[in-house]
């Protein structure tokens, strides 16, 4: 195993189908959660003696509670349409990373215990007993799925491997074999309010530092309010936005847009996290508990609107699930989408003409856009189907003069995952992450060769962190990955900004 990613596949093109390499990734496995981490999310601390019975009981419960789980386990015909669609398969060649084969790891057990054919003719239909070896195999390969749903786009029945991998992770959690990375983080959100475990005091100090920085850079006092009661907008953003590049630059971009739009807004220290890792472990209850923090914060602060910052799976939970998990939102202003994406907000303001830009500030950059999987295939933006593709691109084309898309079969609904999504953004999976990123990186390299593209923008904290880590392995600088609102921030001209002489005449229209 080359955990340093020395054996990065040399793809001839982004979607090159590899030769099968059986067992190539059998050793890949993330750290198991400690009893403490498990307790924080309400699961047993270690593998229970009666784990098998519990696992089967959970499987039965899932089949009764989740239509997708039941229908998808029944309907697959093994046509093979999905076999070459997973970026981890393309990057590793391990056949168990083919979506159907990944589903079969669980389907084989489901068939054995819950179907006529599997009970009586197991060999015939590929059914097998649940053993500890099977459990270990699940643990390995269901943590080689980023739940990006690319396979579900291409399946004639819409079978979504993400649903199966979430279910598998939930079954493993329930029997006491949870994943450290996800469960530790969810525990921190339950306890403190964000993935980083950033306390209110630290958050306040960070925001004050950013305010000073902004004023130094622009000469304009742009506020970053925290826990401000009576603000109109509650901003829910991934905590990475407070912590690391290029996330921070995107965050400062939102602040500038709010400032110029003349709206009042605030961050909540109680719900200081957009990410919701409850999704990754398939736990409705955990996902709900995290979402309810947002509801409580919105009520306590008395806001009228909720806007989400740049975060992929957070936007899935926000757009697709928040109304279900923490609604109804009848106490918010119904004239705005609930919740709204920061890109929707910014694009609206651009169309209204409230923002002024100097796109030449981004002339040193030739840009492309990476559609983040959860935004592209699991949520929407605006009022039209496909708004999630158009709106971020419209913003980028407004603030940047050089924009080129990557090949069509690697973007929009066919986008390739960054390789770090779905709870896999942890160091011990670096080998998997690098290989999984290789199809996207090849698509980027082709676009660099053809159009001289130097930078790639994304609206997902996981994508940004993952690419900052893996891009150097593919010949790019780590700062080649940028936030969409970082590009906005570079180009926006604040009212009264230093060196803004030619704009002074009409600088009053932002009030």
């Amino acid at each position: 195993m080359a955990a340093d990613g020395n054996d990065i596949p040399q793809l001839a093109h982004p979607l090159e189908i590899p030769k099968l390499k059986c067992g190539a990734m059998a050793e890949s496995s993330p750290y198991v959660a400690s009893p403490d981490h498990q307790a924080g999310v309400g699961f047993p601390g270690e593998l229970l003696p009666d784990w098998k019975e519990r696992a089967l009981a959970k499987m039965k419960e899932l089949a009764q509670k989740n239509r997708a789980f039941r229908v998808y386990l029944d309907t697959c015909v093994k046509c093979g349409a999905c076999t070459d669609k997973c970026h981890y398969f393309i990057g590793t060649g391990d056949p168990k990373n083919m979506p159907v084969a990944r589903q079969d790891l669980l389907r084989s057990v489901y068939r054995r215990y819950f179907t006529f054919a599997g009970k009586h003719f197991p060999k015939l239909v590929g059914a097998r007993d649940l053993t500890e070896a099977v459990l270990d195999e699940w643990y390995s390969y269901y943590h080689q799925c980023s739940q990006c749903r690319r396979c579900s786009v291409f399946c004639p029945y819409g079978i979504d491997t993400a649903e199966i991998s979430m279910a598998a992770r939930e079954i493993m959690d329930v029997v006491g074999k949870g994943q450290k990375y996800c469960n530790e983080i969810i525990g921190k959100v339950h306890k403190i309010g964000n993935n980083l475990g950033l306390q209110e005091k630290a958050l306040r100090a960070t925001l004050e530092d950013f305010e000073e920085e902004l004023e130094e850079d622009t000469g304009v006092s742009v506020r970053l309010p925290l826990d401000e009661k009576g603000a109109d907008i509650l901003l829910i953003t991934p905590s990475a936005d407070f912590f690391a590049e290029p996330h921070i630059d995107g965050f400062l971009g939102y602040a500038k847009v709010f400032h110029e739009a003349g709206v009042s807004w605030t961050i909540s220290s109680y719900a200081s996290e957009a990410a919701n890792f409850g999704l990754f472990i398939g736990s409705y209850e955990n996902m709900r508990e995290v979402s309810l923090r947002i509801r409580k914060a919105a009520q306590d602060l008395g806001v009228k609107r909720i806007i989400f910052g740049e975060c992929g799976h957070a936007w899935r939970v926000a757009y697709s699930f928040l109304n279900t998990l923490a609604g109804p939102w009848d106490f918010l202003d119904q004239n705005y989408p609930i919740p709204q994406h920061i890109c929707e907000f910014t694009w609206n303001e651009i169309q209204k003409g409230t923002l002024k830009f100097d796109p030449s500030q981004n002339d040193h950059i030739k840009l492309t856009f990476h559609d983040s999987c959860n935004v592209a295939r699991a949520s929407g933006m605006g009022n039209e189907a496909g708004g999630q593709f158009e709106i971020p691109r419209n913003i980028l084309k407004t603030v940047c003069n050089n924009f080129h898309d990557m090949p069509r079969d690697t973007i929009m609904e066919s986008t390739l995952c960054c390789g770090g999504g779905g709870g896999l953004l942890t160091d011990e999976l670096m080998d998997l992450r690098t290989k999984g990123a290789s199809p996207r990186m090849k698509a980027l390299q082709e676009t660099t060769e053809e159009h001289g593209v130097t930078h790639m923008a994304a609206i997902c904290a996981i994508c940004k962190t993952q690419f900052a880590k893996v891009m150097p392995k593919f010949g790019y600088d780590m700062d080649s990955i940028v936030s969409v609102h970082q590009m906005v921030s570079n180009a926006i001209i604040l009212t009264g900004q230093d060196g803004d002489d030619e704009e002074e005449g009409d600088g009053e229209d932002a009030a």
Partner: protein
Amino acid sequence: MLGYIYAILFYAATAILVVGLAWKIWIYARTPAPLKIPTTPAPKTRGGVVLRMFREVVFFESLYKSNKWIWLFGWTFHMGMWLVLIRHLRYFTQPVWWWVEIAQPFGTYAAFAMLIGLGGLWARRVLVERIKYITNPSDHLMLGLLMGIVLSGMMMRFVTRTDIIAVKSYMLGLLRLEVGYMPADPVLMLHLLLVATLMIVFPISKLLHAPGVFFSPTRNQVDNPREKRHIAPWAAKLEN
């Protein structure tokens, strides 16, 4: 005697098919989808979803996007099968409906489409490394069963004609719960036996993809989660 054996077989097969499918559909319909998970971009209206599903089941839209070979063989097989099924209605109706008459010549040669489709799909199971890997013995058996039905049917149509008048009167009799004379033609017996087998395994096999596709949440949900609150009954209980 033969008439009675096949009568029992067909009544049993029909009962298993109907009850088994109804049971499965009941389960699918009853099982809640707790969250909105349409694969986006997805239609924003019910009408849009109907259209999406129509494109999916009539043109195999997603499969077309995915893999042109599987689409070609799969679509050819299924469309051929519909024509052949329609043509077979003539053995169960008297007088024969006008649109079944129209389909007659197409239905006759559609058997070749089925044959080509099945052959192509079967070849891929053997020749394409990835698909070979995911293939179980039951997948070969299913193809063998369908291939057997098509070939035995074609035998009777194009090679050794059976006494089709007698077969039809036997089938019309079964519909009236009357067991008549069935010709002891081995090809016919094989054909009917395989068809009955197919009917029996339908509700316990991957043939469930036929009803299943209509219940796939990624395909049948409207993309309106922000506008309309969606909540499963078991999840609503958590709110108390």
